[in-house]
């Protein structure tokens, strides 16, 4: 873990209140699939936890930002050429499956970590499902199509081109042998919980990449702790990938 300075190389408004920032770091970032980082706008704000989207080279990567609070709003006001201190790399190494059929489900900005995970799993049939609540939030389709031919989008709001409904409704339209498939899922807590229960009942295997509010990102503040079914407490920032069926929602 190190705190280094990055410089914003590009900033693209890809959907409503949603931006893709490309950063260049002063030292090697050492990021890989499934890692995240903290970004700091100034000395008075807490950092914002962000998943890595695309890794270009040892000193360049991108992330997706959705405005949802003071920290993300301040970040969204940064522009090309601005400096952004970052703390990275964070979280343990993600376990990559060797199953032959793998589904990658991202909800909202939860699509971000899926991009590098798809790239990191070479020899499987891979299906990306990108889920959004509103049409004006849809993004990333072309980017995911550039690395994987199977990309499907579902949206809670009715659109002309995409599946109308949530991810579970979409999965129900597919013929999936759940015990043979593997799932990587990232998105809102509500979406993860619903999918966790849905997939557990079907004996599916996979990892839930949990988003949770955190103040520090490196295991000190205890803001992000969650309780597991075996009664152990896990700090989400130390490893945000949880096996399906292990989280205690009570």
């Amino acid at each position, binding site marked *: *873990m190190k705190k280094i300075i990055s410089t914003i190389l590009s900033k693209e408004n890809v959907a409503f209140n949603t931006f893709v920032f490309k950063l260049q770091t002063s030292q090697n970032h050492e990021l890989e699939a499934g890692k995240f980082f903290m970004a700091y706008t100034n000395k*008075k704000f807490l950092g914002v936890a962000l998943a890595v989207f695309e890794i270009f080279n040892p000193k360049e990567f991108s992330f997706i930002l959705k405005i949802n609070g003071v920290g993300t709003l301040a970040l969204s006001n940064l522009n090309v050429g601005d400096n952004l201190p970052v703390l990275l790399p964070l979280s343990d190494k993600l376990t990559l499956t060797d199953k032959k059929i793998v589904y990658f489900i991202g909800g909202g900005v939860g699509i971000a970590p899926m991009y590098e995970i798809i790239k990191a799993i070479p020899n499987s049939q891979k299906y990306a499902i990108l889920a959004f609540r509103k049409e004006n939030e849809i993004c990333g389709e072309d980017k995911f199509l550039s690395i994987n031919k199977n990309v499907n989008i579902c949206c809670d709001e009715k659109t002309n081109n995409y599946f109308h409904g949530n991810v579970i409704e979409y999965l129900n339209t597919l013929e999936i042998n759940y015990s043979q498939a593997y799932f990587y899922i990232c998105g809102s807590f509500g979406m993860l919980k619903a999918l966790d229960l849905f997939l557990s009942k079907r004996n599916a295997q996979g990892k839930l990449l949990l988003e949770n509010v955190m*103040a*520090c990102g490196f*295991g000190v503040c*205890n803001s*992000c702790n969650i309780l597991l079914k075996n009664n152990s407490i896990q700090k989400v920032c130390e490893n945000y990938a949880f096996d399906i069926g292990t989280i205690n929602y009570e």
Partner: protein
Amino acid sequence: MNNNKLEINFLNTILKTPIMPASGTFGNGKEFAKVFDLNLLGAMVAKSVTKFSRFGNKSPRAISTEYGLINAIGLTNPGIQEFKKEITDFNNKFPTLPIIINLSATCIEDFVFLIKELNNIDNLLAFEINLSCPNVKEGGIDLQCNLKFLKKLFKKIRKITNHNLIAKFSPEANNFIEAIKIAEKYKINALTLINTIKATKIDVYKKKVILDNVFGGYSGPAIKPIALRYVFEAYQHVNIPIIGVGGISSAEDILEFMMAGACSVQIGSQNFIDPWAIQNLNEELKQLCNKLNINNISEIIGIANKKSNQVK
């Protein structure tokens, strides 16, 4: 100016620097030991420990605001037995670093139990008695507001330990001055001022409170002037050492607290914003002391707070 000019005598122990972390913002040192050499701390202040393990409040339990952090962690900790293992392990790694252990409980018996359990810990500089956690249902700020309870508690715990006792107070009680005078009267050795301030935040788009616990403790730069005021006032009324805490993020902030009357300071939320904050503040403080021709940092304690005539 060399490093030892930051040395202070705190509770008859020479600390290398007046800077220490605030309880709850530094874990039990394990994570930060990977970030910088903890031997440069004035003292290690451990996270609050309770008799039994506590998961804490439900998520979300922390929010970033424009000028600070609201946390409703709820005293998450593994309980006294696991804590003892962690702190013993810490002692083995940092055998010369003084330790302050923050204790939380809902009744006198449990404070007594905790102190007895920890009385033989090596390098123990003091027990810090948490009388004012703003985000638990029992054992929080209500303890500090009950002066009768305070008297009983202080009397009892003073009897069972020869270690130093520090009382950590919140500003949220109209009997604050009376409470700190009771602490002094019952031989509490020092005060930590101030704990976080009870606060909340509402999501106007979802039309609901954000924290599951509704309220949390507000910390960070916004509370610095308030904390400074309480240190200033306490220095007027009692003659025991004061640890200043609340929104410190620069060497100037540290000097402000010390000039108001604090003899050491704790760094809280800033540890979340920058894991290297304490290391950097230590360096900045040396440089600022040089710039201001301060030969030994102890000489500025209370310098801006003339006890006789400034408080009406």
